[in-house]
């Protein structure tokens, strides 16, 4: 493998990462804000199939909650199913 020292990359600087993160949060806020416009029928007509869909910020909230719940539950699942890496290992196995 190529072991020559790397040049410094944009992402190597934690400040840049924080900057990106902030921009991402901002973008999210903007996307969520469109919902309000949708409510007012300004930009587009919002067609919904059932009531929950029509709640402002429903999709955004569901997206956030779903991931949070998923990760929380998955962490609990780990307690149940996680095993050491050599759990099934038999003599003579390659790494």
């Amino acid at each position, binding site marked *: *493998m*190529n*072991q020559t020292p*790397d040049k410094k*990359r944009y*992402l190597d600087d934690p400040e840049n990462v924080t900057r990106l*993160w902030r921009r*991402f*949060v901002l*973008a*999210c806020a903007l*996307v*969520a804000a*469109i*919902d309000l416009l*949708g409510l007012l029928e300004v*930009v*587009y*007509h*919002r*067609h*919904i*199939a*059932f009531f929950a*869909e029509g709640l402002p*910020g429903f*999709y*955004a*909230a*569901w*997206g*956030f*909650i*779903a*991931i*949070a719940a*998923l*990760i929380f*539950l*998955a*962490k609990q*699942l*780990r307690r149940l*199913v*996680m*095993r*050491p*890496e050599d*759990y*099934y290992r*038999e003599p*003579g*196995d*390659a790494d």
Partner: protein
Amino acid sequence: MPTELPPFLPFLIGALLTAVTRGRLRSAVMLATPVVGGICLLGIDSGALHQVQLLGYTLTPVRVDELSMLFGYLFHLGAFIAILYAVHIKDTLQHVVAMIYAASALGAVFAGDLISFFLSWELLTVSSVFLVWARRTPQAIRAGFRYLILQIGSGVTLLAGILIHVHATGDISMGHIGLDTPGGWLIMLALGLKCGFPMLHMWLTDAYPESTPTGAVFLCMFTTKCAIYALTRSFAGADPLIYIGTAMTFFPIFFAVIENDLRRVLAYSMINQLGFMVCGIGLGTALALNGAVSHAFNDVLFKGLLFMAMGAVLTMTGRTRASDLGGLYKSMPQTATLCIIGAASISAIPLFCGFVSKSMIMQSALNEGHMVVWFFLLFASVGVLEHAGIKIPFFAFFAHDSGLRPPEPPTNMRLAMLIAAVLCVVIGTAPATTLYPLLPFAAEYHPYDATHVITQLQLLMFGGLAVFWMMRTGRYPTEERAINIDVDWLYRRILPSGISSAENVLEPAWSSLKRGAARPLNGLIALLFRYHGPQGTLARTWPIGSMVIWVTVLLAVFVVVYYL
């Protein structure tokens, strides 16, 4: 020029030629095969092209209609990409079985009757297992055996189902079967094993990650898609499939979040994607079925792309564990970009191909009034973003720097990934001119309306927000050098330990049996050995006297029974 060439024939011939040629010539032959096959396919007539008589039934090995054609195109496309990806390898075995594997997949989707379908189905099993074995590690060999046993089990179940179905209806055509007869249930069970129904999915997550880097690409393209094809053809609108499909989208995402091996994450992700398709098949409306098959189409592209990206990482670094990787974007920027395109596609981000097919299924669930199902599907869609959309590229190419600086993979690998990525974007941006005309069922659908795009963006961006927020705050589960047990634990751990404990209890149990005590049931296999093993009562060489006693006993039985 209309042709009647069976679509699987070019690949079988290709396999033969691949076996006897070497070097550049072989590469040319391998790449030409799907091209030639595809050209022949373009001009193929529709209808039952070939018929044979067997056992008093009329078999139709080649039957062409829109549904088969869609999968026919798909498999040629997939085969071309996968072959291009694998062409640099110098392993004759792998190349030949991959060709046979593609041929049998084509045989399955063009089979017009159940017996031809069964034959292709079995060939699919036998050829694919070699792609696992070709890794040639002890783990791969064992995983291959487990895979083979389960798949043959699926084959036997299918055969039993076909026998019963044919016996009940007298119809061997490969058409709608439904769940009215026990035969139908058995057939669905067999198909279900191949497309990863819950509790039957473990072979997928067990064997695929053990296969060769290139083999996994083939594997992810054909076997499960054949099952999806068959379910679409034979079980469209079967209610249980809706709930089975929902469960399939739902449970693997939890495993995927905590799994360390990235190719295994992809395998879980695959079950999840298959769940969407199965759900669509269960819904059974024209829109839902179109959604299912088009999602199958797209899944071949983006799942293939992801497997190719991970295969490239595995080829260049020799590892696929999230805990061993990270920071690879510095030396593999092209692979990283292509991987991100695949991740965006699978996450169904607008303008990528996952979006234009998955939304059809979601929309049908809403149209049919399956609210609960829809909620679960929505949950699962966000889950996809987490494990396939973010986790895969993030842990492989970014995250903490592992210090690995592998070069980019060989040109042919990058080219194959590029083709898949371009197709992902093209289909995602212009579905109405590329994918939709191929769809077999009549249903109008426009994915790009403002509501849909905006809600999807909200869903995914906030999902992403949650992921990055948890990562930044340390709530995200760390990558552990560990494995997670799954259903295969039952036969990899419980069964062997059960047998060995049975052996331990057997000796005293046997003596207690002699004393007339009850026999413990769990020593079944050991008991079988006791009687049937080389020294067992039923197998050892008997003294002539004992043999003669048996003769006498049997004669006595006959005489007594006859006298009664």
